[in-house]
């Protein structure tokens, strides 16, 4: 290989590309005719290129990729997953498409993904039969009636929904059991518990037999009956005692309302003050304390 061969090789690309001018072309051909090495090289590159492009190129590309960067399927999959959003840059789309043109596995995955997403969109709004709407409207009409009924039914609805939600939670049973245990301990298990003697009495009842149980039940019923009677009597006495106070309070309230309607705010203030005094008096009478100074 001499300097002429080097100069000849420098012209090889231009010759293959068909851009060699007359003088260089003459040199190129005369040297190729004279030099065996350069002639062989020219034959090799001229004759084998089309075959390589047609059959060997993909295999060559695979081999090159295998020993350099490794398969690009992972990156292609990442782009495939993001492609339905429509935000991929044009360059990346081009690269992805070029990969899909040559990678059968990724091309199949892309087709499956597109078909699956189309079906997913179909599933978003399935076709329904005619009674579906009717059933929904029937279910909501009850709610509508309650909604129109006022605040109390709505509150009841909300409470009901809240309770259903609570009861639906998996830990609800545990929470109820815990709360029940706490209540039982507070009722029976501490030195200050109101029913601390109940377990001992229950044990005694079991040990003593049915006669004792009947006596105890009678005793308890008697105590409960007497207690309820006493409470009823006490409430009646207190109601009688506070009847004038309640009448005053009502009267002052009405007067304040009437004054408010007539725009007489001085009277409103006076009557409200008097009503405040009535309330104090009512409370003291209910508690049976010495009456405090009550204004009218």
């Amino acid at each position, binding site marked *: 290989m001499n300097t002429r061969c080097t100069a000849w090789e420098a012209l090889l690309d231009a010759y293959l590309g068909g851009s060699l001018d007359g003088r260089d072309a003459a040199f190129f051909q005369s040297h190729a005719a004279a030099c065996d090495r350069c002639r062989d090289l020219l034959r090799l590159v001229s004759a084998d290129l089309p075959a390589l492009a047609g059959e060997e190129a993909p295999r060559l590309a695979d081999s090159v990729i295998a020993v350099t960067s490794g398969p690009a399927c992972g990156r292609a*999959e*990442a782009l*495939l*997953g*993001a492609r*339905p*959003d429509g935000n991929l840059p044009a360059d990346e789309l081009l690269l992805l498409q070029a990969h899909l043109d040559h990678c059968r596995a990724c091309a*199949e*995955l892309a087709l*499956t*993904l597109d*078909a*699956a*997403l189309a*079906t*997913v*969109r*179909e*599933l*978003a*709004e*399935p*076709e*329904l*039969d005619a009674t*579906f*709407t009717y*059933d*929904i*409207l029937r*279910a*909501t009409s009850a*709610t*509508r009636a309650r*909604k*129109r009924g006022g605040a109390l039914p709505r509150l009841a*609805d909300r409470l009901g929904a809240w309770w*259903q*939600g609570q009861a*639906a*939670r*998996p830990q*609800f049973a545990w929470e109820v059991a815990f709360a029940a245990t706490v209540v039982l301990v507070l009722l029976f298990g501490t030195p200050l518990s109101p029913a601390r003697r109940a377990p001992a009495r229950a044990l005694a009842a079991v040990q003593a037999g049915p006669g004792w149980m009947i006596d105890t039940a009678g005793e308890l019923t008697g105590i409960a009956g007497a207690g309820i009677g006493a409470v009823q009597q006490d409430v009646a006495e207190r109601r009688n005692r506070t009847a004038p106070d309640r009448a005053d309070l009502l009267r002052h309230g009405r007067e304040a309302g009437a004054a408010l309607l007539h725009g007489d705010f001085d009277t409103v203030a006076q009557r409200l003050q008097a009503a405040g005094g009535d309330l104090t008096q009512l409370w003291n009478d209910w508690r049976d304390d010495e009456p405090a100074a009550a204004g009218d």
Partner: protein
Amino acid sequence: MDLANLLESCRAGDELAWEMLVRQTQARVYGIAMTYVRDRDEARDLSQDIFVRIYRNLDGCKDADRFLPWLVRISRNACIDHLRRRKARPPARDIPADEALRLVAPDEAPDEEMERQARRRIVETALHSLSEINREIILLKDMQGLALEEIARLLNLPLGTVKSRSSRARLELAKAVQGLMGTAGAEATA
């Protein structure tokens, strides 16, 4: 009538407006319910519950542009509540998933309809083989068409996580479908 006016009329108690809103959104709500419970009758009952919730809370959706995310959020919450309740008290009979896919047949040739049903069945099964979070992201993004920001807010996840998960979930779905189609093909050959 545009959606803003429709919502306003519904809030004012117009029964016809409410009926129209139900007709416009019932398929979507039913679709969400089906994705969660996979049973036709259960999804139907659940859809009624969802609409009762929507009706009660109509005042909570002031902006018509935000109606779809609001509807999806209410539906999703109702489905999750329902599943919790079902977990606490499981039904006496577990209904096979296949029954869930017997939807109303439109006017199509029987072969086409069967093919469509088979395709749906495979995608449904593949969808339920995904993890819960991936399934929800596909439901919200590809089924309901919510924006990624909305999904991030709904699932209480960072936006980047939702983006990457969305992409991975789709691929997972496609691979699951491929796996099921391979299985179905093998069964058919056998």
